[in-house]
C-alpha cells in the first residue's frame, strides 16, 4: 500500500490517495495517517480508493474508526471508489450505507452533507 497526500486541500477537504493492497499488514499506516490528520484539525477527509485493488476487514475497520472521529469533530470522511471489487465489499458489509461513496474527488467534496 502507498499513501499520497497533496499539500493543498480541495475546497477545504484533505484528500488521501491510497494505492495497492490495504490489509491487516498495511492498514496500520493508513490508521496512523488518518488519526493524525484528524488530530491536526483536518476534519473533512476524502480517501481516494481508485488505485486500491484489495481491502480487508482491518482496512474497513480503519475507515470506520476514522469516519467516527471525523464526524465527532463535525467533519466527515468520504470515499472515492468505482472499483466493483471494492464496492462489493462495502455492499456486503453494509458499510456502503455508512459512507458517502463518490465516483470522483470532485463529486466527493461537493456531495450534500448527509443527516446521520
Amino acid at each position: 500500500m502507498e499513501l499520497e497526500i497533496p499539500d493543498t486541500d480541495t475546497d477545504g477537504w484533505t484528500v488521501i490517495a491510497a494505492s495497492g493492497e490495504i490489509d491487516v499488514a498495511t492498514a496500520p499506516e493508513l490508521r496512523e495517517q488518518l488519526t493524525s490528520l484528524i488530530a491536526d484539525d483536518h476534519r473533512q477527509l476524502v480517501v481516494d480508493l481508485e488505485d486500491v485493488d484489495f481491502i480487508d476487514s482491518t482496512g474497513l475497520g480503519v475507515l470506520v474508526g476514522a469516519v467516527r472521529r471525523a464526524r465527532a469533530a463535525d467533519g466527515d470522511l468520504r470515499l472515492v471508489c468505482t472499483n466493483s471489487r471494492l464496492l462489493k465489499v462495502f455492499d456486503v458489509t453494509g458499510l456502503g450505507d455508512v459512507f458517502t461513496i463518490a465516483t470522483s474527488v470532485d463529486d466527493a467534496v461537493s456531495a450534500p452533507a448527509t443527516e446521520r
Partner: protein
Amino acid sequence: MAEIRLEIPPRLDYLAVVRLVVATAAALDPPLPESRLDDLRLAVTEACSNAIKAHRPEAVADPVIITCALEDDRFEVSIRDRGPGFDPDALRQLPDATDPKRLQHESGLGIPLIKVLTDDVTFEPAGDGTIVSMTLKRPPAPPI
C-alpha cells in the same frame, strides 16, 4: 483431485503470498470466475489473518498450514492454526449499518465476511488449534 499445501510462518506480512497462491491455484483449470477469485482472496485473507493472530498470544512458532483441494465441481481451502481455539457461535453480532452504534466497532467483520463470500465454511477445533475450511463451488461446465 489435486492438492496444494502451503506452510507459512505466523506473520502478517506473509498474507500477500497466501492470497497469491490460493488465487493462482483456483484459477487453474477449470478456473473460478474472476469475481469468485476476489471473494476467495478476501475470505482467505480474513481466515489466515485470524489464524496468524491466534498464534501470537502463545508465541507459537509453528507454521500456519493452508491446504487447497481442487475438485472438479468446487475449490476447497482450509487453514489450520495452533492457536487457543474459539467458539464461532459465541461471537457478538455487529449493529446494523444504519445504527449509529455501528461506528463504535472497528473489528469483528472477518468471520461475517467469510460467511457471505464463501458457499460453505466450517470451524473445527483441531486438538491444539483450529481448522477453518471454506468451499467455493465452481460453475457447472457448459453443456456440450
